[in-house]
C-alpha cells in the first residue's frame, strides 16, 4: 500500500474546511486589561497549584499567585497588578464545566510588572538556570495539551534527544494564532529556539509548518536564514498534522512507539505559542500571563487574533471582537475538531486556550445520528490505523475489552472519524466514554488492591499489637512472680 502513499506522509487524515481566512488577515490585537481576571489554579496537566496569596492582597503583574506542587505541575502568576478580591470555585474551562478553585483579581488599571521582571542575557546563564526559568514562568504546552514545558526540557537534557521540533502545524480549522505569531514575531521565535537548543544540548531544530501558511513559512525562513541548525520544513496541510506523533512521523520518518513518548525517538516537540512564551520568560523574565488566541466563528463580528491576559472571561474577549451577530449555537474552546463546548461565557481564557469559537448551527452541522452503514470512511480517515466502526460497535455492546483489543488506547481523539461519518455517529464521544470507563475500572482495581494491602497491614498491626500485649502481660506476670519470690525469699 505504501506505493500509493508516498506523497502522503501519514495514513488517513482529513481536509476539513479550513475557515482560516476569516481571522488570519489582521495583525494580532492586544486586548485592553479587563476589570476582573479569573485565574484558575489548575491550567496544566498534573497537580493543581497551591495559592500563595490571600483575599485582599495587593499583587503585581507577574507575581506568583500559586505555586506548583509535585513533579508535574506549574505555578500560576498574576496577569496584571491589582487586588485579590476572591479565591473561590468558578466554572472551569474544562469539558466537565465543573468549578475549580479560581483566584479573582481586580485590576488597578496600572498593569505594573513586579520589580524583578526585567530583561536578562540568557546566554550568561547555565543551561540548568535557563530550564529553571521556564519552570518558574509556569509555561505549559500551549497547543492544548498543557503539559508543563519544563518537564519535557529536563527530560530532553537527560535523554538522547537530538531533534527539537517546533510544531507550526496548526491544523485545526479556524485557528490562526500560531500563523500570526510566526508572521509577526519570527525573530522572537527563533531566539527562543536558540535558547532551547542551548539549554537542552539538542543538535538541530525543525520547524514544521503546514503549507497552507506560505507567509509564515517565508517569515520563519527569513528569521533563521543564518542558522544552519534550524530548518523550516513545509509539511502538507492535512489534519491532524499538528498532532506531535504525526508531525514527528512527517518530519523524521519514524513513529513514536505506542508505549513511549517523543523522547524515545529523539524528539522534543513544542508548539509555536509555547516557544514564544519561553522567549518571553528567558529573555525578559516574564512569566506566562498572557497568550495569543484566535477568536472566530460565524457569529463573531470581527474574527481576529488577540493577545489576551490569562483569566479574561470569554464574554470580555468576544465583546472586544465586536460581539455576536446572533446568538451562537455553540461556543467552543479550542479548535472545532478537538475543542470542547463551554457551558457559558463566564469561563476564563487559560494557558491552554488556543482559540475560542462562537459557531452557527450551520457550521456545527449537527444531525441526528443514523445507524452505521459500514462505509469505512472512518477507517480511511483514522490517522492512527484504527477501525473506529468496530471499536464503536464493541463499545455500544459494552465490550470494553474488545474495544481495547481494537486499539482504543491508541486513539488520539482527533475527531477525523466523526468528521467524515455520513451517519453522523459521535464516534469520539463513544471513545471518550470508553476511555473514562476504562480509567474508572483501573482505578477501581487499584483501589481494591490498595484496600487489600491496607487490610493486610492492619491485620499485621493488630497481630503485632496482640503479640506485644501478650508479651507485656507475660512479662508483667513474670515480674510479679519474680517479685513475689524475691519477697518470699
Amino acid at each position, binding site marked *: 500500500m505504501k506505493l500509493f502513499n508516498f506523497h502522503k506522509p501519514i495514513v488517513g487524515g482529513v481536509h476539513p474546511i479550513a475557515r482560516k481566512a476569516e481571522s488570519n488577515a489582521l495583525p494580532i490585537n492586544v486586548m485592553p486589561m479587563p476589570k476582573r481576571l479569573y485565574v484558575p489554579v489548575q491550567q496544566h496537566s498534573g497537580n493543581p497549584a497551591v495559592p500563595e496569596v490571600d483575599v485582599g492582597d495587593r499583587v503585581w503583574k507577574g507575581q506568583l499567585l500559586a505555586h506548583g506542587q509535585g513533579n508535574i505541575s506549574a505555578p500560576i502568576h498574576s496577569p496584571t497588578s491589582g487586588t485579590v478580591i476572591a479565591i473561590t470555585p468558578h466554572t472551569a474551562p474544562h469539558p*466537565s464545566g465543573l468549578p475549580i478553585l479560581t483566584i479573582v483579581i481586580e485590576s488597578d488599571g496600572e498593569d505594573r510588572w513586579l520589580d524583578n521582571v526585567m530583561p536578562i542575557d540568557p546566554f550568561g546563564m547555565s543551561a540548568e538556570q535557563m530550564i529553571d526559568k521556564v519552570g518558574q514562568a509556569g509555561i505549559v504546552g500551549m497547543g492544548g495539551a498543557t503539559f508543563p514545558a519544563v518537564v519535557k526540557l529536563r*527530560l530532553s537534557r537527560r535523554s538522547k534527544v537530538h531533534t527539537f521540533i517546533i510544531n507550526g502545524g496548526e491544523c485545526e480549522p479556524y485557528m490562526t494564532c500560531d500563523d500570526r505569531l510566526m508572521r509577526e514575531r519570527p525573530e522572537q521565535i527563533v531566539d527562543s529556539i536558540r535558547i532551547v537548543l542551548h539549554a537542552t544540548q539538542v543538535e538541530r531544530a525543525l520547524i514544521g509548518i503546514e503549507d497552507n501558511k506560505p507567509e509564515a513559512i517565508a517569515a520563519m525562513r527569513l528569521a533563521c536564514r543564518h542558522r544552519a541548525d534550524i530548518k523550516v520544513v513545509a509539511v502538507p496541510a492535512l489534519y491532524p498534522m499538528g498532532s506531535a506523533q504525526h508531525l514527528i512521523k512527517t518530519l523524521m520518518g519514524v513513529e*513514536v512507539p*505506542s508505549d513511549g513518548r517523543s523522547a*524515545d525517538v529523539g524528539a522534543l516537540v513544542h508548539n509555536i505559542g509555547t516557544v514564544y512564551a519561553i522567549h518571553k520568560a528567558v529573555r525578559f523574565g516574564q512569566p506566562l500571563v498572557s497568550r495569543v488566541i484566535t477568536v472566530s466563528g460565524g457569529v463573531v463580528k470581527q474574527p481576529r487574533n488577540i493577545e489576551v491576559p490569562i483569566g479574561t472571561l470569554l464574554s470580555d474577549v468576544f465583546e472586544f471582537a465586536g460581539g455576536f451577530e446572533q446568538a451562537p449555537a455553540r461556543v467552543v474552546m479550542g479548535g472545532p475538531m478537538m*475543542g470542547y463546548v463551554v457551558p457559558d461565557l463566564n469561563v476564563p481564557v487559560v494557558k491552554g486556550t488556543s482559540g475560542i469559537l462562537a459557531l452557527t448551527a450551520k457550521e456545527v452541522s449537527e444531525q441526528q445520528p*443514523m445507524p452505521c452503514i*459500514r462505509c469505512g470512511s472512518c477507517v480511511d480517515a483514522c490517522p492512527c490505523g484504527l477501525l473506529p466502526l468496530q471499536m464503536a460497535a464493541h463499545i455500544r455492546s459494552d465490550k470494553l475489552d474488545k474495544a481495547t483489543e481494537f486499539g482504543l488506547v491508541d486513539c488520539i481523539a482527533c475527531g477525523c472519524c466523526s468528521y467524515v461519518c*455520513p451517519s453522523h455517529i459521535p464516534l469520539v464521544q463513544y471513545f471518550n466514554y470508553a476511555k473514562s470507563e476504562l480509567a474508572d475500572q483501573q482505578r477501581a482495581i487499584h483501589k481494591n488492591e490498595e484496600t487489600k494491602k491496607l487490610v493486610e497491614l492492619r491485620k499485621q498491626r493488630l497481630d503485632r499489637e496482640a503479640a506485644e500485649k501478650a508479651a507485656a502481660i507475660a512479662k508483667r506476670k513474670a515480674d510479679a512472680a519474680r517479685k513475689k519470690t524475691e519477697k518470699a525469699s
Partner: protein
Amino acid sequence: MSALISGPHTHAPTSVSIVMGHVILALIPATAYGVYLFGYPALFLVILCIVSAMAAEAISLFLLNKPIRPFLLDGSAALTGLLIALTLPPWAPWWIAVVGCSFAIIIGKHVFGGIGQNIFNPAMLARVMLLIAFPLEMTTWVIPHPLFSPTALSFSDSLNITFGSGIANLDAVSSASLLGYIKTELTLGKTIPEIMQHANYDPLTSFIGMKNGSLGETSGILLLLGGIYLLAMRIISWHIPVAMLTALIAIPTLFHLMNPDRYVGADYHILNGGAMIAAFFFATDYVTSPSTKTGKLIFGAGVGSVEYLIRTWGSFPEGVGFAILLMNALTPLIDHYVRPRIYGRTYLGKPIESPIKSDSK
C-alpha cells in the same frame, strides 16, 4: 449537559442520503439506456421496483416500531429497488419486481436488523432467490427493442408485457444470453472458435450495450462511467472494483492461453453478464464488504475468482450473484483478521521498538 458534547464541532458535508443519492445518480445513465433499449416495460419495472422496495421498507419500519421518515428517506431502499430492477430481465412481469423487492427489504435487510446490519447484499440476495425460484422468467432475454425505432413496442403492448399476460411471440423476440449460449454449446462438445462463429459477438457493441441481457447490465461503458463518477466523488474506493476486474481478466486469460478451444478470453467475462455492474455497484456495497483496504482487495479478488469458477465450471451461466453472496458471508471473517497497522505498533499489535533508549523508562 451541553458541555459534555465531544468534538468535532464541524462536519464534512455528507450524510447517508447524500451517499445513496450519488450512487443512484451514477446508475441513471445505465438505467436510462436500459429503458431506451427495451422500451416501456423496462421503465415500468424500474418504477415498480423502487415503489415496492420503499413500500416494503415503510411497512417493515412500521411493524418494527422504528421511525419511518428518516429511514425511508435515506435513499437506501430506493437504491435497493433500483439495483434489483437493473438485474431483472427487462420484460419480466410485475410480480417478479414486487416479490423480489419485498424479499430484499424484508428478508434481506430488516430480518437482520435493518440498515447496516445485513450480512448479504439485499439486492443480490433477491436476484439469486428469483433466479432459483423463477428460472423461466429470470432467463428470458429479449433482444433490444429501442424506443422510437421501427421495432419499438406500443404502449399497450408494453402494459401487457409487464402487467398482463405478455405477448404471443415472446420466444421469437428472445434468445439466450451470450454466456448461456456458450455454456450450452460447450456441453454439446463444440469448441470456442466454432461457437463464436455463430455467436454474433462484437466486443465494441457489447461494451456499448446494444445486446440482450438484464435491464441495466448491458452497457459496460455506462456502468464504467458511473463507477468512475463514484470513484471521483470518493463514494467508493478503487480497491474492490480493481481487484475484482483484475481477477476476472487474469484468470480467464491464463486459461484461455492454455486452452483456447475450451476457455473464452477475458473480454467475454468483463463485457458480458453482470460483471461490470457487480464490480462497481454490488461488490462495493458498504454494509456487506470489508472496511479495510487490504480486506477490500481480498474481497474483490474473491468475487472475481468465484465468478469465473461458477461461469466456467458451475451449472449456471452467470455466477456473479453467488460469488458476491459467498464473499459477503466471508466479510466478517476478513474484517476480523485483516486490520490496518496501528501507529506506533507492529502489524501484530506490539509496540514498536524505540530507536534510542531514553532514561525516561
